[in-house]
């Protein structure tokens, strides 16, 4: 399975060794405290907290930058719209368009929160193998139907992706270019074939799983065990999150 997300999950830093259940709860609390920030004076604290966590994680900067690239386009779209449409205080003009102060400040707030949340999210999912994180969610109470669906979907996602590539190559070899609106019918058949193949494969997978005892209660524990260091990390991060939320309330 080609999960780019797991590329650095086997390093040995305190964040990598942190119990995944604790890491999930504490970092999600931090992420939500970031989302609650509306006061611009708190933005340096957000940058410092997320930067310090990323440094401690030992993940390479290129890893974070590669993950920032795609959503950056959405941010660019907002950057084009907000300063011109939002607010009343005109800062300066670009041609006939007025750049407004409130829009620029809103953009700054959104951009910093976005970058910090993505950084903490990268630490959360980049320092633990993805499947271990899902097991941690299950240990925290994720219903087994959702957990099983996540495991199976993840297992077959790239396999089905490869199927799609093979079928698209076959279509191109037969002269299909897919550039005209009239090609919608052929593309619908491509998607339909993908669904039919997956459905038929799921039948075989289910029978094989039943033979291996799927559906019976598990006879093993999830294997997570928290020690003093896990609790200490969790307490520190949750306190930081609570501090940010409290500061936001006090500054309002």
């Amino acid at each position, binding site marked *: 399975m080609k*999960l*780019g*997300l797991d590329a650095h999950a086997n390093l040995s830093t305190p964040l990598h060794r942190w119990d995944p259940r604790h890491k999930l709860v504490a970092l*999600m609390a931090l992420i*939500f405290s*970031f*989302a609650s920030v*509306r006061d611009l004076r708190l933005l340096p604290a957000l940058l410092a907290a997320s930067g310090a966590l990323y440094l401690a994680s030992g993940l390479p900067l290129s890893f974070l930058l590669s*993950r920032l690239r795609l*959503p950056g386009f959405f*941010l660019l779209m*907002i950057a084009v719209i*907000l300063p011109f449409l*939002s*607010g009343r205080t005109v800062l300066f003009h670009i041609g006939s368009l007025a750049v407004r102060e*409130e*829009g620029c*400040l*809103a953009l700054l*707030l*959104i951009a*910093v929160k*976005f970058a*910090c*949340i*993505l950084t903490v999210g990268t630490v*959360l*999912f980049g320092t633990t193998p993805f499947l271990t994180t899902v097991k941690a969610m299950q240990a925290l109470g994720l*219903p087994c*139907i*959702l957990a*099983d*669906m996540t495991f*199976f*979907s993840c297992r*077959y*996602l790239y396999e*089905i*992706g490869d*199927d*799609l590539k093979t079928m698209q190559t076959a279509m191109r070899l037969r002269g299909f270019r*897919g550039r*005209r609106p009239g090609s*919608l*019918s052929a593309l*619908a*058949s*491509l*998607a*339909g074939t*993908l*669904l039919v*193949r*997956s*459905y038929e*494969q*799921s*039948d075989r997978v*289910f029978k094989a*799983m039943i033979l291996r005892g799927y559906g019976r209660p598990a006879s093993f524990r999830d294997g997570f065990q928290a020690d003093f260091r896990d609790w200490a990390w969790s307490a520190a991060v949750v306190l930081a999150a609570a501090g940010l939320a409290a500061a936001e309330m006090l500054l309002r």
Partner: protein
Amino acid sequence: MHIPDGILGAGVCLGGYATAGAAAWWSLRKIGRKANPREGIPKASLLTAAFLVASWIHIPVPPASVHLVLNGLLGVVLGYYAFPAVLIGLFFQAVMFQHGGLTTLGVNATIMGVPAFLAYHLFRLRRIFGKDSLVGTGIFGFLAGAGAVGLAAAAAFIILITTIPAGLDVEAQRASIIALTLAHVPLMVIEGAFTALVALFLHRVKPELLEG
């Protein structure tokens, strides 16, 4: 239509998680009433992965191309599994491909999952035309696909425009919501046509996939 992190406040994000949690709970309750609830999991999981992959297909809209949302088709094929499938699909997209976000996962799942569920019920109305009617499958496939993406777009724009943290006046907000939703009408038509074509394909090749 995937709202990224950083735009919505914590209150809206938590509200999104609450509505998504309620919808997921209700779907799981319906699934749990089946004779063997686990039997449908491999099917729903592989189809979830297939939907995620199918949404990577580029649809030509000269001079560019678009990716489809496929939430209507998801409802048509997966029925009560559609909401969990949307939730998992969005989780993968947020974590692996940075589409959407972790804080906005609940909001995005509600925006796309509830219309998927409505599409399932809308598509079931095709039986008015008879169980094996191609006309019914085509018409209700189109309505399910177009309606689901239209509802999702309208919900996303309403949430975005009313919660962006800088003052837009009420008139500007209303005009923006209407303009952005109308701009999605061509996408609704494409999504509806695509859903109808896939439903007709499945009707011919694997009709049991349309049972939901």
